């Protein structure tokens, strides 16, 4: 499913209208985490990230992990500086007032999957 389809199907707010959410590869994977060290270690490349973390580091971490978009859940919104940085780097930012749990469920229903089982530590 394309990012544009996900946006329209789930009614997500587009925080970076400067960037197109259409075109680009289909999104098949997702990750939900507010610990950016965990995102760096475990988010699947090409996937989307669901988080309530709005720090500038989200952008750098998402780019490093090769993510295709970030969705801020629970009504969280980043500062303008963070948004502008994402635009500069070509990383679409989306937002919803829904909880991470609800949104992850909806994405799963659309066919997206997580990274699979974690190895126990």
């Amino acid at each position: 499913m394309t990012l544009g389809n996900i946006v329209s199907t789930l009614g997500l707010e587009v925080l970076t209208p400067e960037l197109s959410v259409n075109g680009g590869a289909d999104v098949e994977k997702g990750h939900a985490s507010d610990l950016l060290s965990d995102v760096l270690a475990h988010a699947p490349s090409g996937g989307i990230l669901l988080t309530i973390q709005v720090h500038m580091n989200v952008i750098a971490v998402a780019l490093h992990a090769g993510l295709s978009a970030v969705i801020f859940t629970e009504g969280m919104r980043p500062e303008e500086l963070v948004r502008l940085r994402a635009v500069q780097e070509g990383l679409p930012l989306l937002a919803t007032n829904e909880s991470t749990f609800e949104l992850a469920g909806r994405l799963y229903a659309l066919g997206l999957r997580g990274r699979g089982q974690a190895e126990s530590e």
Partner: protein
Amino acid sequence: MKRLAADMHIHTVLSPCASREMEPPAIVREAARRGLAVIAVCDHNTAGNVRAVADAAAMIPDGPAVIAGIEITTVEEAHVLGWFRTPEDACAVAGALNVDTALPSAASRFTLSETVDLIHRHGGLAVAAHVDRRSFSVPGQLGFIPTDVPFDGLEISAAGAARGKAAGFAAHGIPLVSSSDCHFLEDMGTGFIVLEVFAPTFDEIAKALGMVEGRGCAIA
């Protein structure tokens, strides 16, 4: 110049996670017993016990110098230590944080940058706490240490320092310290720094962190 052992991250009973034995008289007795010349009291989002620990230290022989501190939970849930010249400075910062006293270690509404700025505006030193740990640390919460936040120090946990983790943080070019982060008397002084200073005061410690005017600071 003196060489003084300092444990700059100690909790008291005011921290909900700390043992009830962490009362001011017991803390200063234990510090004296372990040969710590300096301790910093850093409870979660409060400095309410700093004065009591300092008073207790003044009442015993060989009581440690007590530095006013606080361990702030930022909105990103990263822990940042603030060390201050006076208990009033620390209490002013705690007042500004205005964290619900029913949940003292909960996140404040201050971002990491705002937290460091708040500490600096009150003349304090801002140290990212236990950066080698995954829980409640700046790298754990934010993936890496942001280069645009002017930390005065990075704290390595006692366990991390023992395993040689400090070396991995040297490249940041920020002074490194280690402390016990003790919540129990038995853990006090498990991590500490050795200060080369003229006196166990905040201003001397600030110079030691910056390695200026002959002062120095090293992880023990």
